[in-house]
């Protein structure tokens, strides 16, 4: 596979995964706001923080009212991390790699792009939001199903799995970070019943509530959820599971030994961390380091497959070689 195409495929998967995660975040924040008493509610600011768009948001001089934040996260083309921007990127890429994907995949992404552009206003109003977000989540999951169902094993599929799982690990760690700092229990707090509701919503935003209960056979409690979302080996949106799946994809790709070592090391560190014993500050510090490690891994992936120096060997017996970086 061409390096340029591999780069595109990797990012196509990341953008589509981002679209799904954005839809989940908006959906759950909306329902959380309905469950909590007004003075307890975290508001809509966390969505801006999680998506890493704080500076841009502040620069626009926006307020943190529900409609403003939702429009910014879903429908604002000026926000490069918004749902419409991510889809526009994904579609542009899908268009450039139409030659390697089945037609249905392109038509599906194109269709979702057209839908979101035509219906973005539905996300702003509460009455239509749920149906809109449900459509988006279902459509992104359909894409995952299509890849599984009609794309042959090969570099395209593996780079997409790699991109999807790197994006997912990143997003899950951001969600845990932002929610945890605001919500980890303070002793003697009278508000603990509501903390449980919030942690349930965190699980729900990742469709993980049901799987959490099945796996842990425990009630929802903060350290349990943090540990589950970061270190569970089986839940597809848990960081460790994402890392494991990224490794599975890399196993099948060439020249991946160095990358695999890095990911395995990272996975071991997460698995062995005693989340029950971490203070909120220590957890925040840990997630910072985790995100840095993920960013470094991304750089290594790009260097190995997409953009690194590469030497073109001469075909003749000559021992010299010519660099064509």
């Amino acid at each position, binding site marked *: 596979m061409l390096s340029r195409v*591999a780069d595109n495929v990797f990012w196509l998967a990341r953008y589509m995964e981002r679209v799904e995660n954005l839809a989940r975040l908006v959906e759950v924040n909306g329902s959380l706001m309905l469950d909590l008493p007004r003075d307890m509610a975290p508001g809509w600011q966390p969505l801006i923080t999680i998506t890493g768009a704080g500076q841009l948001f502040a620069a626009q001089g926006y307020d943190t009212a529900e409609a403003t934040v939702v429009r910014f996260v879903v429908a604002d083309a000026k926000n490069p991390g918004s749902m419409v921007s991510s889809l526009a990127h994904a579609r542009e890429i899908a268009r450039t790699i*139409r*030659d390697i994907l089945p037609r249905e995949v392109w*038509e599906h992404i*194109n269709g979702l792009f057209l839908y979101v552009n035509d219906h973005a206003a539905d996300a702003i109003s509460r009455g239509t939001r749920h149906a809109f977000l449900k459509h988006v989540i279902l459509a992104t999951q359909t894409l995952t199903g299509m890849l599984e169902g009609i794309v042959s094993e090969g570099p395209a599929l593996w780079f997409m799995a790699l991109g999807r799982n790197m994006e997912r690990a990143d997003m899950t760690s951001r969600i845990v970070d932002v929610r945890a700092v605001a919500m980890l229990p303070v002793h003697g707090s009278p508000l603990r019943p509501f903390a449980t509701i919030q942690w349930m919503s965190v699980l729900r935003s990742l469709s993980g509530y049901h799987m959490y209960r099945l796996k842990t056979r425990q009630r929802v409690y903060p350290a349990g959820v943090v540990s589950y979302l970061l270190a569970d080996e089986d839940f597809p949106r848990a960081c460790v599971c994402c890392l494991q799946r990224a490794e599975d994809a890399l196993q099948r790709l060439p*020249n991946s030994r160095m990358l695999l070592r890095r990911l395995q090391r990272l996975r071991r560190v997460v698995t062995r961390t005693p989340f029950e014993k971490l203070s909120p500050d220590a957890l925040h510090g840990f997630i910072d380091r985790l995100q840095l490690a993920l960013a470094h891994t991304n750089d290594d992936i790009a260097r190995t497959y997409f953009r690194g120096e590469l030497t*073109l*060997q*001469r075909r003749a017996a000559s021992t010299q070689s010519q660099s064509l970086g």
Partner: protein
Amino acid sequence: MAIRWSQYPAAPHYDELIAPGGLARAGAETVARHLEQLGSLELSVRQKAAEAAVKGMGITFTVYHEEGGSIDRAWPLDIIPRVIEASEWRLIEAGLRQRARALNMFIDDIYHAQRIVNDGVFPRQYLLESANFRSQCVGISPPLGVWAHVCGSDLVRGGDGTMYVLEDNLRVPSGVSYMLENRQVIKRVFPELFAETNILPVDDYPSQLYDMLRAIAPPGIEHPEVVVLTPGIYNSAYFEHAYLAQQMGCELVEGRDLAVDDDDCVFMRTIDGWSRVHVIYRRIDDLFLDPEAFRADSTLGVPGLLRAWRAGKVALANAPGAGVADDKLVYTFVPDMIRYYLSEEPLLPNVPSYLCADPQQCEFVLANLATLVVKPTNESGGYGMLMGPKSTEEERRQFAELVRANPRNYIAQPVVQISTTPTLIDQEVEPRHVDLRPFILSGSDVQVTTGGLTRVAMRKGSLVVNSSQGGGSKDTWIVESGH
């Protein structure tokens, strides 16, 4: 609203579907009857469905704008098909095949012995002045002796029903993907017509193209790597480049993906490192192909590519230099080429043409500017033309100066009364002018697409069919009648 062919205003032009008096032409009877039964309201509903299908399938073309960069637009498709009876098509097809053979022999001759020049059939002077003659190609013998592997010839039908060749596009002709996609959409729109009419299929083109490309690989390569080379996403034909690469199962590469080593072999950059490339279906113009050999400022090309081609380490389709026959002055000699190389009479006529390069003919052209179409020899896409009957005196005066300053650069033709075919305009069926671009593949044999891309000028009376200038397209049906 009902459609009544007896009231269809085809006159004064030749109409492709309806003969004078409102009767359908041979091969079009079922289609005409069916359209009449559907009525224009139902047709409008189906037109909307077709447009939705085009949008959903992402069939687009790119238009440039001075501000805001390029814009991806939905491909314009009129659902009423253009019909050609199969027995007539077979004659056209034979004519195109004959033409492609002669053109390839001409190009090969021009870069070798130049027999046609030495025998006085093609004037040496015209060759020396040709902008598309590439001295870098002299003496090269590409595989199978073929230079123009893919040719798109534009055909128009005159007022007397004769099909003329208007020009031959031998550089990087585009449009074949739209021909294939139009058929996909129209099959969804008129499934019942496909069931009751014997419409010949068009789907085979990508595999024929692939087989041809494999056949021109350097000798001794069992599994040649074939790639499509595109200038990139902002090229107006990018959709087609991606489409063909996908249909053939080939890599779609850009210049920056390729490199040439010291042994003149071409490689592409992959996740496994460099990988050898044997055949390149290039959709980049000659001059941008290789900054070492042509334009040094080209960032689209691959340094050393021409060197690799000359060494026979990679095949290029179309071959560099093939454009020497893609010149409106050379075009006027195609009938002579057919007689010279094949000892056959041309099966498809040219539009009668006057060469301004010839002093006598030039005088005639200058005296009759008001009734002629004057065309620059090296432009495509309808640029830089004078439409005599529609021009002002001042425009003719300016154009006469241009012609006098550089006569080699112009030919002139009488205005062809181009045929029309029924087209859906604001829920009514009206005649609009059409042309036809079939595609001809030359490898170990010569193959012609079944029909081609029909382009239609959507504005009343207009002859401009280019999609960038408001032209539309139609599915072209080659219909076997009498079954």
